[in-house]
């Protein structure tokens, strides 16, 4: 990796130690090389390439018979993307799904983790497995399952609702977002729960025992002792969830197969892939950069927010 700069001997005392540390540094670089080279090729290069592409546009001259030429376009692609109401709509849609779905999912994860951690809960092993199972299924297979579960004509949920006299179409325009939110919640609650639960398990049991002696209720212990102590886990799961929502693609893409009314620019990634299909790579790159920046700003903004709050407490 280029970031691991070769050590210079400047400032180091001459002799055995510097030779030693130089040799160690060389070993470190050798060990880092396989990962570093692949990381540069598979992570850094694509990121750089995307940013580079987003600054260019293809121009076809005359009748379009000659090969198109790449022309530096500055921020023209960005202006176009931000003017594109379809793309703006996809960003807003994902933001909205995230604002509702992430808190619901994390509240559920935290509640289940606390209940699993409580001393008096029965059948913990079974419940822990049951809650975590969706994570063991590939996201697309989970999405496929749910697409069958909500598909008009096939859905046992719709059938059950019909039985009690309710007309329910889970793939109708107004219910698409809740349906997708539900798919996400189903797939990721267990994963987040396990992260929080693992943090809860690391709390020394003496703490809650002492609180119990002082007459603190189980609810009070959860609220005043456990939740503040698992704050890092909550922050981590929130950041992961924000990034996960930003890259929403599988669920809507598979739902699209049973719900043709789902637009082809439903989420930003969807829109970018649509641009790839149309052969407009520059535009796809631009949409990718905007989305990555937004995800970055949101997750880091959240981190800053909780850090400031943490300092005030």
């Amino acid at each position: 990796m280029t970031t691991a700069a070769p050590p210079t001997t400047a400032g180091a005392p001459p002799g055995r130690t510097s030779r030693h540390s130089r040799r160690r540094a060389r070993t470190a670089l050798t060990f880092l090389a396989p990962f570093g080279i692949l990381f540069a090729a598979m992570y850094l290069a694509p990121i750089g390439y995307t940013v580079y592409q987003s600054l260019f546009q293809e121009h076809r001259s005359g009748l379009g018979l000659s090969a198109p030429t790449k022309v530096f376009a500055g921020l023209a692609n960005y202006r176009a993307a931000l003017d594109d109401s379809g793309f703006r709509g996809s960003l807003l849609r994902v933001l909205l799904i995230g604002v509702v779905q992430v808190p619901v999912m994390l509240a559920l994860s935290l509640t289940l983790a606390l209940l699993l951690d409580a001393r008096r809960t029965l059948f913990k092993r079974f419940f822990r497995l049951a809650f975590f199972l969706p994570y063991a299924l590939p996201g697309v297979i989970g999405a496929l399952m749910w697409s069958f579960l909500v598909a008009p004509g096939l859905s046992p949920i719709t059938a059950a609702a019909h039985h009690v006299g309710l007309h329910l179409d889970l793939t109708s325009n107004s219910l698409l977002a809740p349906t997708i939110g539900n798919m996400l919640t189903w797939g990721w609650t267990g994963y987040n729960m396990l992260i929080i639960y693992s943090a809860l398990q690391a709390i020394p049991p003496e703490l809650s025992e002492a609180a119990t002696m002082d007459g603190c209720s189980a609810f009070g212990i959860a609220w005043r002792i456990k939740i503040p102590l698992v704050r890092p886990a909550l922050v981590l799961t929130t950041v992961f969830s924000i990034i996960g929502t930003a890259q929403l693609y599988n669920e809507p893409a598979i739902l699209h197969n049973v719900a043709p009314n789902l637009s082809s620019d439903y989420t930003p990634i969807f829109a970018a892939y649509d641009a790839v299909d149309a052969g407009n790579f520059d535009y796809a790159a631009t949409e990718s950069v905007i989305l990555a920046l937004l995800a970055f700003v949101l997750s880091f903004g959240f981190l800053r927010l909780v850090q400031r709050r943490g300092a005030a407490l």
Partner: protein
Amino acid sequence: MTATETPVRPDNGTTTTPPDRPRTPLALSRWLVLGVMVLAAVYFLFPVWWLLVASTKTSSGLFSGNGFWFGGHFAFFGNVRAVFAQQGGIFWRWLLNSALYAVGGAAAGTLISALAGYALAKYPFRGREFAFNVVLAAVLVPQPLLAIPLYLMFSPVHLVNTYWGVLLPSVVSPFGVYLARIYAGASVPDELLEAGRIDGAGETRIFATIALRVMSPALVTIFLFQFVSIWTNYLLPVLMLADDRLQPVTVGIVGWQSQRGIGNAVPFNVVVTAALISVIPLVVLFLTLQRFWRSGLISGSVK
């Protein structure tokens, strides 16, 4: 900091009630909690249950009767045969491809992650913290965004539509490096490395014989996480592989599902049964290697 040192309380459900506490009001809350847990378990399990039940039905049986209970002709074995007969038995190939991508990618990835994590934990060099921070930031990069540029970069060098097109990107796991560094830092004692050096062992040998052995629980965790993330990956292979003989099982099944409405589309019961079969390897892996899941998530949450 690491899994091994975290005090884990026994949680096998055996609760020892202190004798000096009143029991009656607690019995109610206990039932309440159990109710909530059962409700949640039903929510998480019923789609899987539906999949199980649906795999025993014929195509027409799927559209009639109660979706959550068996009924009509028990067609499970016929469905399984149909899955493996569909499209000239390509499903076998998809399963093998998935196994190849997941095992190959995760094995190579675990090794290079272990090397990098160990180097970042045990060798002081300039720019070490910076390198580690770059790796950490990479954990936060939305993966699907890399797939498009990778496709464009792989096109001119003819890696698109080859096994390498999926394998190469799958090998890189910043999360694996992160876990390896945390674990190596906490569990590989410096004294042990020093002893090896005094005995005249080279650095590579020390890594291979001492460090890898001490790090082996973490290696299983890294392998497991990477295996699952490759097996479940969809976006990268669907973009890279147009040839369906190279596709992993996730891409193949979704391809079958999306044929709906086309002339001789793959019947629903075949798609449903194929989906069920494709998750069996992961569920088995997940049930048998549970403790490694937990240890990975613990080091992920305790920074």
